[in-house]
């Protein structure tokens, strides 16, 4: 085998309070397409940013083309031949295609930009990737997919030896993806090393030669794509540890009447219409990979995104699909997976965060009495073991696990009928995780309906009475009773493996 063009060894990256990467090894060879796989928070972006000089490396070394390097800015990495194309197109829409491709390195004549030479050079670069558009046209006049390809043309204009594509396909349709892959193959055959990040398994198997799997900031393994089955890949991404957690006792009582009934609820471009029923005292798990539609289902039920088809009944009454307030009034609570952006109000105290939903429901004119607020805060700090037990501390200063407990408490004080938890245990320590799972089980035992979403399959299977599986933005199965992790995993992974058909049959049978 040839020498790797990029060789990262023992890479660790730390952010305040978080170890984003721990001793990760990564190799990238010339002329290969290499997929970097992992769920959210696995460390994919961090690894890319450690390579391109965005993040500082706390430990470990990076070798590029055989030499030790430490880039301190993306521009240095680019100058050395490592080009990155990000998920969102970051070009200047108001400039022409040629200007975008050669921005900052325009051909000059007598100190002035030589427009003719620039267009000629741009046309050459576009031809190299087989894209036939007018270099003089304004970038914005082209669809996003073409803009993405222009970004790639710009990336390879510097004679890149390494091309990093961070989720380039998330906004493309099937034809556009095929075009992108054709170009990736052209570059690969020219000897460029392509690092490719995506959440779509189909695409990984179509385009990549090798893959590196990360989980929770650690290296799981490096595999030849052809030698790793989908099931094994999904299993590597989701992990099967967690034996440390005590088994949650199965509730013997049968669940009550249906609390939530969704019929044909859907939203174009987000999730295909689905039916769902959740009964009182039941925990329903929602499993699927990132981008499978699991979060979108939760957002539709709560009205965080507006459904454009179907109807929703809570406790027999139809809920207006107008937004979160209508859902809250109907007794639905939703804790978002994005704790920072959609959960905590960082600058406000634990007390204020905890009573926020209750206060919002009462309106501004009827403040939650200080005495009641103090009682509630004291109660939930003890019940959920929120640390430090200081109601006046800004919630932004708490650890992730404790922030999550505050968010859980925020909804519990409103005494909802249905609690939707989207990844309530992501990125938090094992102890807090076990506590949250226990609380969920207790709530269901008291009659609350819970929709539980998690990237960790073991967890979903353990806490849920029933598991709904999502794949490719569709509900593909519903598994009742004693579900095995392997069954769910087969359904998540989808086509290409033998286990799947059995899984579906089993699901239908049960």
């Amino acid at each position: 085998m040839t020498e790797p063009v990029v060789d990262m060894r023992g890479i660790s990256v730390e952010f305040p309070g978080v170890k984003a990467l721990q001793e990760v090894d990564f190799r990238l060879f010339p002329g290969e397409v290499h997929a970097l796989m992992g769920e959210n928070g696995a460390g994919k972006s961090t690894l890319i940013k450690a390579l391109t000089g965005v993040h500082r490396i706390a430990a470990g070394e990076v070798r590029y083309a055989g030499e030790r390097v430490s880039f301190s800015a993306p521009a240095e990495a680019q100058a050395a031949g490592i080009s990155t194309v990000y998920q969102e197109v970051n070009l200047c829409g108001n400039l022409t295609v040629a200007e975008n491709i050669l921005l900052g390195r325009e051909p000059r004549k007598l100190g002035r930009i030589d427009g003719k030479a620039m267009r000629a050079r741009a046309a050459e670069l576009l031809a190299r990737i087989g894209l036939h558009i007018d270099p003089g046209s304004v970038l914005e006049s082209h669809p996003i997919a073409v803009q993405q390809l222009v970004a790639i043309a710009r990336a390879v204009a510097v004679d890149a030896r390494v091309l990093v594509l961070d989720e380039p396909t998330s906004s493309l349709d099937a034809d556009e993806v095929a075009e992108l892959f054709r170009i990736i193959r052209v570059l690969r055959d020219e000897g460029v090393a392509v690092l490719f990040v995506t959440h779509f398994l189909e695409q990984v198997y179509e385009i990549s030669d090798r893959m590196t799997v990360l989980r929770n900031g650690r290296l799981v393994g490096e595999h030849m794509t052809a030698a790793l089955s989908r099931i094994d890949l999904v299993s590597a991404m989701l992990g099967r540890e967690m034996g440390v957690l005590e088994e949650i006792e199965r509730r013997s009582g049968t669940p009550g009447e249906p609390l939530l009934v969704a019929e044909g609820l859907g939203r174009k471009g987000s999730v295909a219409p689905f039916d769902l029923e959740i009964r009182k005292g039941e925990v329903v798990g929602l499993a699927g990979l990132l981008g499978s539609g699991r979060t979108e289902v939760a957002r539709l039920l709560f009205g965080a995104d507006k459904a454009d088809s179907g109807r929703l009944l809570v406790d027999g009454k139809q809920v207006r699909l107008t937004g979160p307030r209508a859902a809250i009034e109907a007794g639905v609570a939703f804790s978002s997976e994005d704790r920072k952006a959609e959960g905590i109000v960082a600058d406000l105290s634990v007390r204020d965060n905890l009573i926020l939903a209750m206060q919002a429901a009462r309106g501004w004119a009827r403040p939650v009495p200080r005495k009641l607020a103090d009682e509630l805060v004291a109660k939930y700090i003890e019940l959920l073991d929120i640390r430090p037990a200081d109601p006046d501390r800004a919630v932004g200063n708490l650890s992730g696990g404790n922030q999550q407990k505050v968010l859980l408490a925020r909804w519990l004080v409103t005494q909802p009928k249905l609690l939707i938890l989207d990844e309530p245990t992501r990125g938090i320590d094992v102890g807090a995780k076990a506590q949250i799972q226990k609380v969920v089980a207790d709530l269901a035992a008291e009659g609350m309906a819970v929709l539980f979403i998690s990237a960790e399959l073991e967890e979903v299977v353990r806490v849920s009475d029933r598991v709904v599986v999502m794949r490719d933005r569709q509900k593909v199965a519903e598994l009742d009773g004693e579900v095995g992790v392997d069954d769910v995993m087969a359904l998540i992974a989808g086509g290409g493996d033998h286990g799947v058909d059995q899984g579906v049959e089993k699901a239908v049978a049960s």
Partner: protein
Amino acid sequence: MKNRLLWPVVALVALLMLNVVVTPSFFSVRLQDGHLYGSLIDILRNGAPTLLIALGMTLVIATRGIDLSVGAVAAIAGAVTCTHIASGGNAWVAMGLALALCAVLGLWNGFLVSVLGIQPIIATLVLMTAGRGIAMLITEGQIITVNDDSYRQVGAGFLVLPIAILISLAVLGLVALVTRRTALGLLIESVGVNPSASRLAGVRARTIIWTVYVFAALCAAVAGLMISSNVSAADANNAGLWIEMDAILAVVIGGTSLAGGRYSLTGTLLGALIIQTLTTTVYTIGIAPEITLVFKAIVVIAVCLMQAPVGIRVRVRGKQGVPA
């Protein structure tokens, strides 16, 4: 919060000390005919409109917004009132009309920002420019002078202290009471810190934002009445000119971040006093009024430097080396 108020207090004390050094009688206050007179009283009286507008601005800024139209709204309030009085109307009715019209203007700003989702700086820029035109239309391009004793009281009257500052302080007290005794303060801060999270928690962000713009317009209206009443005239072109800048500056000096979130009414009070003292200082120590702007510019730069996160980040980053 205490730390945030430290520098404004230091700045205010320093400015007052500078004045005492130059004018030893600066602190002297005398009682004449039941009125208090003195340089400090002048600062309070002249600073009343700025303080009032800054109070409205504080709540707007706390929701991540900004209201550039307050100066124009103040001019409209004066124009409506003086025109009505000049045509033989009652002063109280005239002021009521002005407040009602300005409340409508506040509704307009709130509509643009909260319903249409236009960026606050652009949304209120509309009324900032158009507002002076409306005021001109109302006064038909003339400076309207009036002679009405009850109207004169608003800006120039005394109840031992100037009535204008009594009004502003009363509004300050009222806002403090309403925002802290009800949940309005919490909801405003929540919307300002994290609009998405607030929406998902069920906060009626739209109503909250709408409310603060109406409140800001009402504050501007009363300030406009003070300005116009003080000179018994409505000048559509110059009344309240650039007062939005002073108000924003007062809010920022008081420690409320333009990024929204936690706000300090006490800080805004201090900020408004600093700005007015600054202006007065330039007069008392005998520098040409042109220099006022330079002084203010220096204060703005100092405040911005203290608040700038980038400067700090660059320094921190420079210290972290890649281990060899």
